[in-house]
C-alpha cells in the first residue's frame, strides 16, 4: 500500500518542484518573475532543488518599479550572482518615458498598475512563453480561483470564466502563438508555510524582514516609510519606529509593522499571534474596491 505519509512542507515542496520541472519541460522560453520578496526568494530556492546539480534553466526577471527597497535590490543582485542565474531587469521608469505613460498622482502614487505595461513588454521582448510567479491562493479571493497554469492572451489578460480544468497533477501548457502562461508553483502554500519553509531550509532574507529602525509616517493606522517616492503633507509627523516588513513590495504601497523581532523564530511567533491578514496588514493597494485584485488580474497583472 502506498499509505505513506509525508510532512506537509515536504509535500508542498514536492508539488512545487514537480510544477517547475513541468514548466521547464513544456515551454521553450520560461522565466521566473522575481520581486525580491520572500515568496519569489522561496521560488528560487525551490528551483535550485528542482534542477540540481544543473543551474536553474530559466532567467530571473525583475520588473523594477523604481520604488523598491534598496535592501531588496542588493539581495536580488547577490542571489543572482550566487546561483549563477541570468538576471533581466526592466524598469517601469523606461516604459513611462518611451510610451509616454501618465505617472499616477497622489500621496502614495503607486506604479503597481504601470508594472503590467513593463511586464507585457518584457514578455514580448524576450518571447517568454511561461512566467513563473510566486502568487499564493491564500493571499486574496481572486487568487483562490486561479489555476496553477493560468493561460493569458497576448494582452496578458486573465479570463476567469474560460479557465482550463486542472486535473490531478496534469498541467496542460499548450498555447497558441502570442499567448503565454503564468505558472504559480506555490499556489497551495500559505503565508505561514512559506515562513516555516524559510526557517527549515535556512534561507537568508533581506534585512528589512527583521526589526530595524526606520523613519515612517502613520497613515490610517499603517506605517509607511518616508522615501522620495511619497508626498508628505504638513499634517504628517515623521516618526522613528522599530519596524519590520511582512511583505516586500513597492515602498509606496507596502506598510511596515511595528516589531522587535530580530530572528526568524521571533518573526514567525509574531505572525502566528497576529490577527490581521498579510495583505490587510501590509498592502494599501488592495483596499480600494472589493474586486481590486480581480480587476488587476484581468488586466494582465500576475
Amino acid at each position, binding site marked *: *500500500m*502506498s*499509505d*505513506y*505519509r*509525508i*510532512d*506537509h512542507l*515536504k*509535500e*508542498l515542496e*514536492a508539488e512545487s*518542484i*514537480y510544477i517547475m*520541472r*513541468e514548466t*521547464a*519541460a513544456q515551454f521553450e522560453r520560461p522565466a521566473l518573475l522575481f520581486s525580491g520578496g520572500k515568496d519569489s526568494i522561496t521560488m528560487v530556492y525551490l528551483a535550485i*532543488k*528542482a*534542477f*540540481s*546539480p*544543473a*543551474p536553474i534553466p530559466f532567467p530571473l526577471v525583475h520588473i523594477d518599479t523604481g520604488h523598491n527597497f534598496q535592501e531588496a535590490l542588493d539581495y536580488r543582485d547577490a542571489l543572482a550572482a550566487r546561483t549563477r542565474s541570468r538576471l533581466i531587469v526592466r524598469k517601469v521608469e523606461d516604459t513611462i518615458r518611451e510610451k509616454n505613460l501618465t505617472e499616477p498622482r497622489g500621496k502614495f502614487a503607486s506604479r503597481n498598475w504601470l508594472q503590467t505595461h513593463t511586464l507585457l513588454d518584457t514578455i514580448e521582448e524576450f518571447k517568454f512563453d511561461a512566467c513563473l510567479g510566486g502568487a499564493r*491562493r*491564500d493571499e486574496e*479571493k*481572486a487568487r*483562490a*480561483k486561479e489555476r496553477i497554469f493560468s493561460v493569458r492572451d497576448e494582452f496578458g489578460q486573465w479570463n*476567469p*470564466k474560460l*479557465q*482550463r*480544468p*486542472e*486535473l*490531478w*497533477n*496534469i498541467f*496542460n501548457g*499548450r*498555447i*497558441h502563438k502570442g499567448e503565454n502562461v503564468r505558472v504559480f508553483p506555490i*499556489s*497551495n502554500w*500559505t503565508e*505561514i*508555510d512559506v515562513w516555516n519553509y524559510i526557517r527549515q531550509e535556512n534561507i537568508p532574507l533581506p534585512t528589512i524582514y527583521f526589526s530595524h529602525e526606520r523613519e515612517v509616517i502613520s497613515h490610517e493606522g499603517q506605517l509607511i516609510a518616508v522615501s522620495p517616492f511619497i508626498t508628505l503633507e504638513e499634517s504628517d509627523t515623521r516618526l522613528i519606529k522599530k519596524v519590520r516588513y511582512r511583505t516586500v513590495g513597492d515602498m509606496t504601497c507596502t506598510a511596515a509593522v511595528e516589531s522587535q523581532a530580530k530572528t526568524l523564530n521571533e518573526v514567525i511567533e509574531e505572525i502566528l499571534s497576529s*490577527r*490581521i*491578514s498579510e495583505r*490587510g*496588514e501590509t498592502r494599501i493597494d488592495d483596499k480600494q474596491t*472589493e*474586486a481590486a485584485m*480581480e480587476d488587476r488580474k484581468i488586466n494582465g497583472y500576475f
Partner: protein
Amino acid sequence: MELLRLITAGSVDDGKSTLIGRLLYDSKNIWIDQIEQLEKISKTRKTTQIDLALLTDGLRAEREQGITIDVAYRYFSSPRRKFIIADAPGHIQYTRNMVTGASNSELMILLIDARQGVIEQTRRHSIIASLLKIPHIVVTINKMDLVDYSENRYLEIIRDYQEVASRLGLPDVHFIPISALGGDNVVNHSSNMPWYEGPALLPLLEEIEIRRGDTLEQSRFQVQFVLRPQTDDLHDYRGYAGQVSGEAFKKGDAVRVLPQGLASRIAKLEHHGKEVEQAEPGHPAVIHLEDDLDIGRGDLIVRAGEEPLVTKSHEAVICWMDEKPLVTGNKYLLQQHSRLIKTAVREIAYRINVNTLDHETGIEKLELNQVAHIRLQTAGPLAYDTYEQSKATGSAILIDETSNRTVAAVLFLHPQAVDSTH
C-alpha cells in the same frame, strides 16, 4: 503536520458556503480585517448577521449572481493538520468543476439538507466520489435546527444513504448531524443534539486516518525532464528527473523503461542534488541508469518484473469537459502526466447516467459534463496502470489540438481485449 486535501459537495441551498465559513470562523482561521470587510459588505446589503457564506465568494460575477461557478481553494489549519478545501459548485452543469476538485481530494464532505434527505444531487456527488476513488466520505446532515434536531430524521437519512453507499461500494463513510448556521457539531459538539455521541466535523477531519487512493505496490517513475547541464564540471551528467509513485526505488534495482521495454539497472539516485540509497514515493528524484539508453520525457521507469499494461488500445471512463461535444472518431491529444500522444476515440461503449448510474448505449456524442466508458486508440503504445491501482499512472486528460483546451478527464480501466501488438 499532515496535509489533508478535501472537497465539499453540495449546492448553495445546502449551506455549503456557510459550512466552510463556519469551519474557518470557529477554528479561528479568519483574520480580523476579513471579518471587518464581511461586516461592511453585510451592512451594505442590509443583512443583520455576518454572512459567513460571503467568505467563500470569489469572483465578482459569482457575488453578483450569488452562486459559485468555479472551484475555489481554501486553506486552514488546526494544530494537528493543514487542510486544503476544494470548494466546487454542486449543480449538474458544473460536474466538470466537481470532477476537477475531486481529482486531488482524499476526502469528500457531502452535505445533505435534513429536510430533503437523499436527493438526486446526493447520488450524483456520491457517484463522482466513487468514480474518482475518493477514499473517505463524511456525510454532514445539515440544517438539523429546521427538523427540531430530530434523531429519528437523522437515522432515517443514514439508512437511505447507506443504500447509496453500498451500491457504489464506497469504502469509508461517516455521518454527522450539524447546523452550519448555528455552528452545531462543526467545530464544537452541540448541546442541541445530546443523542449524537460521535465527533464534531473538525475533530473528525483532524483524526481520520488518511488513506491515499492508490493501492499500487509497485515502483513507478515517469521521466519529466532530462537533466543534461553540459557545463564544464558536469559534462557527461545525464539524469532523469521525475517523481516516484507506488513503492520506493533502490540503487541497484533492475528496471525496465516503457513503452520501449529497454532493460537497465539504477546506477545512482539523487534527491535535491544529494546522492541517496533509496528514492521514496511522493518525492522528487533524479535517476541515473547504468546503460546509455535513448530515454526521453514521458517514458516510464518501472522495476523489472512489475511491468504495467503496455498497449495501444485502451478502455477508460471519461468525463467530458468542453462545450464542443465529443464525437466518435475524433482525434485528440492524450496527456498522461508527462507523456503526450495522439489518440482517437474509437467507440463510446456506454454513457453513465451520473444521477442513477444506469448505462445508456447507442451513444455517438458526449456533451459537456457527461460521463462515459469509451475505447481509445493511441498512435503508439502507452504504459499505464488502472486508475483504481494508481492515480499517478492511471489518469490522463484529453486536449483538443485546435483549441488547446482540456476537454476530458481520463481514468484508465483494465482492457478486456489484450492488444495483439504486445
